[in-house]
């Protein structure tokens, strides 16, 4: 099995990048004073996810979180998974790149994670450090 980095390199040379139509807004309950963060999928990564047979299963990343620095990790040589839809790819990214206390462990009654169309993210960043997830159904997400 080739290394994940080699597969990504080969995919970049072959696949056209895909700008996702989604963003993921989240607030980390461990940092209540921090503004809402926005997860932006990488276009080359998204192209690889939609193509299939490049990225490893998400559970290999989750197990590798507990592997100490310098020790061999599982995900680079894991058998790649098949093609995902864009929505499945976003769910994969949430588990990979957002802390588990946001998407798995949080039990409060605030919405701390929302998948939104990119148009709902304000492009005016004048008050970026005051952004919070809108808890009501309104036009803008933050």
């Amino acid at each position, binding site marked *: 099995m*080739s*290394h*994940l*980095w*080699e597969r*990504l*390199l*080969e995919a*970049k040379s072959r696949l056209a*990048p895909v*700008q996702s139509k989604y963003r993921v807004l989240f607030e980390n309950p461990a940092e209540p004073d*921090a*503004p809402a*963060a*926005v*997860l*932006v*999928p*990488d*276009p*080359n*990564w998204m192209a690889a996810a939609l193509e299939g047979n490049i*990225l490893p299963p998400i559970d290999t*990343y989750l197990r*590798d979180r507990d592997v100490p*620095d*310098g020790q*061999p*990790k599982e*995900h*680079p040589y894991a058998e790649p998974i098949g093609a995902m839809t864009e929505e499945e790819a976003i769910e994969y*990214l949430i588990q*990979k*790149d957002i802390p588990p206390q946001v998407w798995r462990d949080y039990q409060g009654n605030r919405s701390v994670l929302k998948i939104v169309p*990119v148009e709902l*993210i304000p*492009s005016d*960043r004048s008050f*970026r*450090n005051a*952004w919070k997830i809108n808890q009501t159904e309104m036009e803008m997400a933050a």
Partner: protein
Amino acid sequence: MSTLSVSNITDGTDTVETGYVVNGSAKAWVNMNGTGTIAIRDSLNVASLTDNGTGDYQINISSAMSSSNYYVGESGALNTTTEIRHYDTLTRTTTAVQIQCRDNNGNDFYDTAYAGVSIHGDLA
């Protein structure tokens, strides 16, 4: 994918060990627009970008580094004529690195229109 297995590369005059080429290549890099609707222009081995706030971004790597002792190079510009001079590298794990863009004095945070990050080191 076919593999070329050689110890040295030469142009007929100068010779270099392939280890230098492999170790010296960036294992991940990204060129992004940190203003307006944040977007990644191009990249290698990056899964996503987290916009934490003004001038505060996290690069999430797809194929992890072997340890967190890798090198991070950053550059950026507010626009086509104004350079950002001060970067801080904060949280650093084998799969993510957080950077903050500040002014020359290291005080105020700035969103960066042209930001580049490259990561050098050993892959996991």
